[in-house]
């Protein structure tokens, strides 16, 4: 691993973001729109005269957490697509850059994007809806870390599939993460789902993060069981995704896909 090469690839994306208004907006615009919509929905539900759990916290916490996962995944998948669109992949893969360095740089980019987006959302949620995510205390750290881990392996998996199946599969960069949403019990408890779907949800690390978050907001404290499940599943899936990426790269080198994926 060379820190200089990782910094080089990171620099390539930071230069891009510095200059591109649309890419900067992507970091801020969609998350803020989501926050506004879910914030107002929460305010409305909170006015309903029924004994409901702290809905504002549930919805806004879920929305911010979902965005952390989504931005971490996007950072990896879209970074790869940027080089596909720029017809720069061959230039990159004839440098001494290793697959590990390539993925590490995009993972770091993910952390940077997540930091900017979540800070913006936390400040807005506090000022508009008086919801302070930091009330979750130190429990926030392992939950967020798990969301970033999930974002990484889904991003790596997406990139591997695009590498293997070409630009025709690029919509996966946006679609794959949303495949997780209905099963991850993001905005509702897992118990709402039909029993069979609950089993699917149980094996997604995101489900345990969102269940854990709701338990903390409801005053139940950090669930070590959910945290252990989320971490364990993430570690397994991260290694599996890296294996799939290595396989996709080997297939790409065997079939000449690196020469063709740029279209």
């Amino acid at each position, binding site marked *: 691993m*060379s820190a*200089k*090469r990782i*910094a*080089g*690839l990171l*620099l*390539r994306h930071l*230069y*891009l973001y510095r*200059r*591109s208004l649309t890419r900067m907006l992507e970091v801020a615009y969609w998350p803020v729109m989501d926050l506004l919509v879910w914030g107002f929905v929460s305010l409305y539900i909170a006015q309903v005269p029924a004994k409901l759990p702290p809905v504002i916290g549930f919805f806004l916490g879920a929305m911010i957490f979902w965005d952390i996962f989504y931005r971490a995944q996007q950072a990896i998948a879209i970074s790869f697509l*940027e*080089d596909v669109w*720029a*017809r*720069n992949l*061959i*230039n*990159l*893969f*004839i*440098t*001494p*850059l*290793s697959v590990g360095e390539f993925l590490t740089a995009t993972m770091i980019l993910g952390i940077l994007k997540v930091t900017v987006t979540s800070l913006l959302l936390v400040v807005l949620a506090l000022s508009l809806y008086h919801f302070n995510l930091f009330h979750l205390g130190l429990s926030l750290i392992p939950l967020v870390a798990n969301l970033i881990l999930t974002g990484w392996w889904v991003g790596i998996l997406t990139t591997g599939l695009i590498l293997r199946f070409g630009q025709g599969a690029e919509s996966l960069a946006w679609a794959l993460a949303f495949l997780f949403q209905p099963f991850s019990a993001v905005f509702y408890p897992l118990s709402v789902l039909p029993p069979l779907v609950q089993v699917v949800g149980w094996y997604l690390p995101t489900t345990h993060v969102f269940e854990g978050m709701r338990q903390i907001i409801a005053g139940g404290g950090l669930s070590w069981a959910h945290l252990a499940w989320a971490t364990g599943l993430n570690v397994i899936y991260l290694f599996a995704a890296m294996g799939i990426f290595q396989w996709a790269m*080997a297939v790409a*080198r*065997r*079939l*000449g896909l*690196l*020469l063709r994926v740029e279209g």
Partner: protein
Amino acid sequence: MDPVLKVTNLTKVFNGLRAVDGISFEVARGEIVGVLGPNGAGKTTTIAMILGLLTPTAGTIQVLGMSMPQERQRILARVNFSSPYVAMPYNLTVLENLLVFAHLYGVQAPGKKIRELLEIFGLSTHSHQLTGRLSSGEATRLGLVKALLNDPEILFLDEPTASLDPDAAEHVRQTLLRIQQERGMTLVYTSHNMQEVERLSHRIIFLHRGRIIAEGSPAEVLRRFQQESLEQLFLEVARKQ
């Protein structure tokens, strides 16, 4: 002969089609070798295998005494490649792109190196221009600047003057020759400009349907095929396809 590149029985099969069919050749340090052949002859496939972009079906590749793909990273640090058909991010400036690649190649004092190379290729005034706004000729020269950032011991070029007007092409040829002579760099390149190949190459490797059909100095190859120019030879081979 001190081979910096040794290819033995190299074969690449795609869906039963032998794109490269058991070719073997060596390139000596400081040599300029032109790889010729009609479209589909296997030139790009061969170079892609040497650069580790493609895994060979069979055969071995030794670059600077190291095996590709087993020692890919160590090899790639000491070679480079440029092609007018491979772009750099259009939404970064010339300087930003070069700084990124300088990092990737671990170039010491990248600022100085980039300034020198931009000057040599007449791109100094474009350093803050977006890469996407360069003309095709300027983009080709930028590709060459990128390819020389790490002082490669072997430089692979794919049609280096394809998108250049005659004056710019001559400037690039002279510049590459000068750099090659100053640094003792090995140059392996493909071109469809037969006059250029005759003028520049110490040796040519003529590929046809994945096989080497001729190898030697341009004069030797012309004698063997009883042709007056490489252009005539090329046309004869291409029309026999």
